[in-house]
């Protein structure tokens, strides 16, 4: 694969894959030359977009905040991490370096990691060494870089050419030359880089900084005890945060989590958190969720300050006012209202009482679907606010709050492997006859057999005459699950009709011979 760019009207190879490199392709080569070298290979050529490279590197830098709070992207393909003091958390520099290399490999990136006492030395070794992980002890910088090519010093190409003219190709050769002569013959950058490598000059990095989340604050002149005044103030703050002209509108983002901090006199501050299933900028909706919580707050001797922090946000486009509502707008509205319905129910009953169902990779009927809180689940199909009719293409790729540690663009978002609805592995895809009602827990029943067919069953002290039966349908147990015996055994499912006409879904465990009722065609 080749990424190409135009230079003086000529197509130049900007980046190439390892296979191309092995064939002799180098960056800066013309595409025609590269094609000639790659003859016989299937070659994919795409235009090079440096801005996307920078964005990806920035996301990787955010990801690397897990190792240290000071991380700087080093374009085009490097990261500089100040690990001073952080190595203790990883039980030593060696383990830290290995952890970084291993974790980046999991993201499908090839990486070389070097730890040194100066950034310049670590950069030189990481760029020019062949080892995946290199540790350079204090005082050994000169030895570490002596054998490296002079390009490892991050100097301008014309200085490299000038050095090559006098047959200086390794850093060690420069270090052996008298310093005064170097200063007289070459630009000052060469000496600066040498000093930076050896720790005799300061080198600073420009680390990424998390942006402050949008927040609004109101400080009172004195303690306020009237709940009406506090409620009015919170309403005004919500308007200034999420209403017309609010901070979120300017950022084109909606709230996913709102933290409310009430600073009380002579008491601990009260902190409330509001979670939303969909990003929202509707101040009225936020107030309807907040009001019942606010009414229950113990004000104490009064409140001095109220602060609202939108600690988690997600992209949300402006609402375009249209005279004639089109389909996309109506659909968008419907999804917004559904999100508000879920928020309202979850806020009053609890987030675990509003659920959505997602298929799960299991043959066992009770495990074939996982119930998840609707607050965690994605929005209704086709109506995801981030990717819906009001989302532009680049916004779809942007993750929620990219500058906060909650950002998870490069890590697996789900802890439990939930198969997508379009998964090819989906045993319950309507191919089998399944009852309309499945009992929460299979209930044990007593079954009388005549000629090895169920003839009578007793469930909850009620007797049922079996007038018809279908089966068995065998479903193998999960023998690898050693903790739950109930799912280990293979089951033989029978469909039984009782004397009233109900069709019951029953099964017999093959190991124990115990019968259970599992569902009803109701």
């Amino acid at each position, binding site marked *: 694969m080749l990424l190409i760019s135009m230079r003086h009207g000529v197509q130049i190879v900007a980046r190439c894959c390892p296979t191309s490199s092995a064939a002799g392709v180098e960056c800066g080569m013309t595409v025609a030359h590269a094609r000639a070298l790659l003859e016989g290979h299937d070659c994919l050529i795409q235009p090079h977009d440096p801005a996307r490279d920078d964005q990806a590197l920035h996301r990787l830098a955010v990801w690397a905040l897990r190792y240290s709070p000071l991380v700087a992207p080093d374009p085009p393909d490097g990261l500089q991490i100040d690990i001073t003091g952080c190595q203790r958390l990883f039980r030593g520099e060696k383990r830290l370096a290995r952890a970084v290399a291993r974790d980046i490999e999991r993201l499908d990136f090839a990486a070389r990691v070097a730890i040194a006492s100066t950034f310049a030395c670590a950069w030189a070794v990481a760029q020019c060494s062949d080892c995946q992980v290199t540790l350079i002890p204090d005082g050994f910088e000169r030895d570490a870089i002596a054998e490296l090519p002079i390009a490892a010093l991050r100097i301008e190409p014309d200085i490299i050419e000038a050095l090559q003219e006098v047959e200086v190709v390794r850093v060690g050769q420069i270090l052996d030359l008298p310093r005064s002569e170097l200063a007289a013959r070459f630009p000052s950058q060469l000496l600066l880089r040498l000093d930076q490598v050896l720790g005799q000059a300061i080198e600073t990095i420009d680390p990424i900084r998390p942006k402050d989340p949008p927040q609004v604050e109101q400080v009172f002149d004195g303690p306020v005890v009237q709940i009406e005044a506090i409620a009015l103030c919170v309403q005004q703050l919500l308007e200034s945060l999420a209403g017309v002209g609010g901070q979120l509108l300017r950022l084109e983002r909606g709230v996913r989590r709102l933290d409310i901090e009430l600073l009380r006199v002579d008491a601990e501050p009260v902190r409330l958190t509001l979670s939303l299933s969909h990003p929202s900028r509707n101040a009225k909706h936020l107030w309807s969720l907040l009001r019942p919580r606010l009414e229950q707050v113990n004000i104490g001797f009064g409140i001095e300050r109220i602060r609202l922090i939108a600690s988690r946000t997600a992209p949300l486009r402006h609402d375009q006012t249209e005279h004639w509502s089109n*389909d996309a707008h*109506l*659909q968008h*509205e*419907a*999804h*917004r*209202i*559904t999100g508000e*319905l*879920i928020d*309202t*129910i979850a806020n*009053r*009953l609890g987030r675990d*009482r*509003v*659920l*959505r*169902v997602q*298929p799960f990779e299991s043959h066992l*009927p009770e495990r*074939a*679907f996982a*119930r998840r809180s*609707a607050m965690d689940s994605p929005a*209704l*199909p086709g109506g995801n606010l981030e990717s819906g009719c009001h989302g532009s293409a680049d916004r779809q790729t942007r993750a929620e709050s990219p500058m906060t540690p909650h950002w998870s663009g490069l890590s697996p978002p789900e802890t439990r492997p939930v198969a997508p*609805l379009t998964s090819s592995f989906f045993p*319950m*895809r*309507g*191919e*089998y*006859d*399944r*009852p*309309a*009602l*499945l009992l*929460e827990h299979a209930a044990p029943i007593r079954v009388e057999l005549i000629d090895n067919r169920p003839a009578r069953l007793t*469930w*909850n002290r*009620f007797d049922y005459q079996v*007038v*018809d039966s*279908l089966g068995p349908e065998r479903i193998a147990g999960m023998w690898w699950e050693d903790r739950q015996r109930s799912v280990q055994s293979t089951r033989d499912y029978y*469909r039984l*009709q009782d*004397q*009233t*006409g*109900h*069709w019951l879904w029953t099964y017999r465990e093959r190991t124990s011979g115990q019968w259970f009722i599992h*569902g*009803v*065609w*109701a």
Partner: protein
Amino acid sequence: MRCELQQLATAIEDIQQRSATVESGRGFGGSAGLCPAYSHRGDVVSTGIPAIDSALCGGVGIGRVHEWFSNADGRWFPPLSLLMHVAQQALGSESFIHRKAVIWIGRRCWPYSAALIHRAGDCSMLEYSILVDPPDDASRLWVIDLALRCRAVAAVIADGSRLDIAASRRLQLAAEAGRTLGLLARPSFELDTLSTSTTRWLIQPMLTPTVNPRWTVQLLRRKGMRPLPAQPDLQRSLCWTLEYDRATGALRESSELVSRSGPPEVAAIQSKRISA
């Protein structure tokens, strides 16, 4: 012999057609005149079963609450196959093009998710479904009310047991405000409780000679339409046999001409409750 049988079959068919014409109101100046509540087709969701649709002037009304009673001799099973079928019909109707959410309220009324998936692999019903588990009766009533008022919801299927007349009126007003389809599942021993629902149905399982489950569905009330006939033989015309086809997963009217057992004895069910 064959000729006589054919004559008999033709005679039965004529009687049935006449009965359907009378029931749908066409014999009395058209359905619109008899059904002031449903002035145009957008106000109803077709059940997909022509005989039931003709008895209801086109289908179950939108912006109304419908109660579905099912037998609860030993244990109550809500008539979920039928409710799923109606909800599916609502999702496919023109009135709910942009309103797709289906809310299932009450743990007893949660269907098995595999049954929400069509044989053709259509998962839309599963994706649009939201399950709510209210902890008590007051919360259940509040959630049903809230969901019925929501303009993004197509159908609300809820456990309607232990709801009194005031709650019933509240839900009816909520459904009218939100123009939502409200389907309440109730146990049959609550048949004698008062309610303001537009239609009432009684669903009972029946013994089948085939492997497909069958139910008798009887219309007990239709507000805003022609009153139900008092004669037992005409009542029988408002009783249908529906069959769940295991092969296709569809609900359809049974191919048999009439219900063999006739309409179930409502009075008997109520007396059973009293004796219990």
